[in-house]
């Protein structure tokens, strides 16, 4: 699966605030890229499975994010909702190469949004 991905460089890790996130708009989705206090980077689709809350804007703690709309907590590693809640936020592949964040996009996510 991973080898079908197109890896996109979105710039240095420092471009994402610590304990925060930024978003990347693809042709089909918006991706939330998180940077945790221990300098790791994770990505989820920026769409809460509950009611589409923008996860990038939630509070980041440990390897979790709390959705800004109704406080569901999701694991950044698996996307799984924590505690009594059900649901799973879609995970996106991301890795750091020499200080730069690279996001793995599926072929359908590729391409610029306002192309043409």
């Amino acid at each position: 699966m991973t080898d079908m991905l197109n890896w996109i460089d979105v710039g240095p890790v420092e471009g994402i605030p610590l304990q925060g996130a930024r978003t990347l708009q693809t042709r089909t989705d918006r991706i939330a890229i998180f940077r945790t206090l221990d300098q790791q980077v994770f990505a989820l689709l920026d769409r809460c499975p509950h009611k589409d809350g923008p996860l990038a804007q939630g509070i980041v703690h440990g390897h979790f994010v709390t959705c800004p709309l109704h406080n569901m907590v999701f694991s950044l590693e698996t996307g799984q909702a924590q505690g009594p809640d059900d649901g799973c936020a879609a995970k996106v592949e991301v890795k750091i190469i020499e200080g730069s964040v690279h996001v793995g996009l599926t072929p359908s996510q590729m391409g610029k949004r306002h192309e043409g």
Partner: protein
Amino acid sequence: MNHVPAPASITGTARPRLVVIGNGMAGMRTVEELLSRAPDKYDITVFGAEPRVNYNRIMLSPLLSGEKTFDEIVINTAEWYQENNITLHSGDPVITIDRARQTVITQNGHEIAYDQLLLATGSDPIMIPLPGKDLPGVVTFRDVDDVDVMLKAAATGGPAVVIGGGLLGLEAAVGLQARGMSVTVLHLAGHVMERQLDPSAGYLLQQELQRRGINVITGADTGEIIGIDCVTGVRLKDGTMIPADLVVMAVGIRPNGRLAAASGLTVERGVVVDDFMATSDPAISAVGECVQHRGQCYGLVAPLFEMAKSCADRLAEIAAGGYAGSVTSTKLKVTGVDVFSAGDFSGGDTCEEIVFRDAGRGVYKRLVLEDGRIKGAVLYGDTSDGAWYFQMLKDGTDITSLRDTLAFGQAFAGGSAGNPKDAVAALPDDAEICGCNGVCKGTIVNAITAKGLTTLDEVKSHTKASASCGSCSGLVENLLAFTLGDGYEAAALKPICTCTDHDHDSVRHLIRAQGLKSMPAVMQALEWKTADGCHVCRPALNFYLLAAWPGEYVDHAASRFINERVHANIQKDGTYSVVPRMWGGLTNPRELRAIADVADKFDIPTVKVTGGQRIDLLGVKKEDLPAVWADLNAAGMVSGHAYGKSLRTVKTCVGSEWCRFGTQKSMSMGVELEKMTWGSWTPHKFKMAVSGCPRNCAEATIKDFGVVATDGGWDLHVGGNGGIHVRATDLLCKVTTEDEVREYCGAFMQLYREEARYLERTAPWIERVGLKHVQDRVVEDAENRKSLFARFLKSQETAQIDPWAERAKDGVDAHEFKHLVAAE
């Protein structure tokens, strides 16, 4: 110091020739390993760029600080080279490798043939390409020459700046300080040694360095090195100037693969080698920091020594398993500071973590476990078990049976982890426990022992502690438990969240009693069980710190809900609403025109009058927010904080300015109150209203602070709430002048800010502590009212900054409003 033994042709043995490039730690260790395996196999020649014998590079730090001399850090003396028949050309770097002819050529023009070549060129210190980087007085920290430059600068005292707060930078800083310089460390990340330490340990280390007089500035982005003939200072990108006679650049290293790349060997980040340290050319091996093995480059000696063994096996033609990569651990070599880190301590979903904090001893330990095995460890303050954890980590030892006591170390002999009881036990006797009645710990403990008190009520009646608002009752209970021992069962208090055993009130008290001024400080001192809290405790701590240390504590954006972070209200579709302040509900044509223009210009779909007497622009796109604010600012409007746990609106009716029944000027009173209180952060939202007569058209009796004008003055009401549970206000008191309205209002707000729990509105707060408590402190005690009011005004001095203007004009938090884009 060059040693040239008799040529092989004279001694009559034609051995294969091994040429080593790099007279450093990895190269010479490989030679030593080779000699121990096959002493006479090669005719060995070594080239070193540095004009000296091989020395222990990691001891440059003690060399700098004066704890060691050069002779003490030499590894191989000139005699050693002689005894082992090794030709050493020091101070003569190799500049070309001719692989076709199997020769190397040096700067001095030597050309020497090899059968086997060993590359051990180490790495280059990174020099950030800043203006001024070439000025005399700017050095890196890599070799003895660098130390000489530093020592020369240190001889005259003066200021030094170290750029980079990693292992090397901090060791340089400590060394220069020991030599009498006043040192500032500039570090880009949020805490020092961020690659080896988590924020908690980084915080402790930073505290210790500051305590020793080293100034550490984190989040520091260096813009320029200043000076004409030699360096005189450093300027940060934010404009800050720091004077410096010496600048040490210690921002990292880059594997030195230049020579290898020029000769056509495969070089990625480093010279690529296999498990036997062979490069892409079978006649050439490489070891040390210059290599890349299984995608990994190393910057510590332990892996290099492993590589040296495998490389020696290969050169001696001994069949062995090869090098399989290393797990590394780090220790900071600063006398009196114990820091250790190993493995991957970032944790994660499949991992469990054990956090142990002993605030009294300044100890922090964090162990990350996965599948019953140690995956990473960070230790601060007590690293005596570092080797034990590291061994188990490398061995993959199953620690399930040790798990419960693992954090206490190898020599565990019983004991308990920190808890709220220990936190009060650690307080000094003069620490204030009850703020209402000014009772300190010593008084309470004395009363308990002298008078044989055994219950909270007895303590209350004998000492008055916890007899007023009761918010310190948790602390008093813990004092009872600690003084009476196991005989006392403290009433269970609800902890803030699962990250801690402390309740809201105790945390507030302890922040002040222990002078805790940052989030990591609170988490360490109160022995938080997670590394960085959660969405429940972090916003609460952020508010408590803000309220306790106005003007000093820096607001932590990442610990605020999105609304308070971007200063607008998030809507269900992820767009925002924007509510400009309309002082006392008053507006004018200019403001209305600006609002209309903004709505047109940014295609804002909904414009609505709110229940708080102002106008809401709904459906603004996040990326438009700064531009929307800029336009509103231009018309003189500021944020209405419709999103904040802060002052919201001050509703007014028309009052005696227009109304035929009005007895006082309610509009101007409302505007004044709003101008005085806007921008203040409170435990929950805070709303006010001013009505011009008892008909109360501004609905002041369901507000947090309501003012109702009467014939002779003003009635002041508190603790009202619309919302879910409607609560009418209680009458606080009656006053006559406008000045009194302001003073009581500010004092009441301050009491609420200092005493209520985060997310507790005034209505439930007053129901909990009782109206009488509030009256005692704000009405009966004039002295106290004045000091509350003074504290309120003091904290307003730094609170009334329009968050919109900061973001529209000054680019604060610009990242919040921009998407990432793919690099071209």
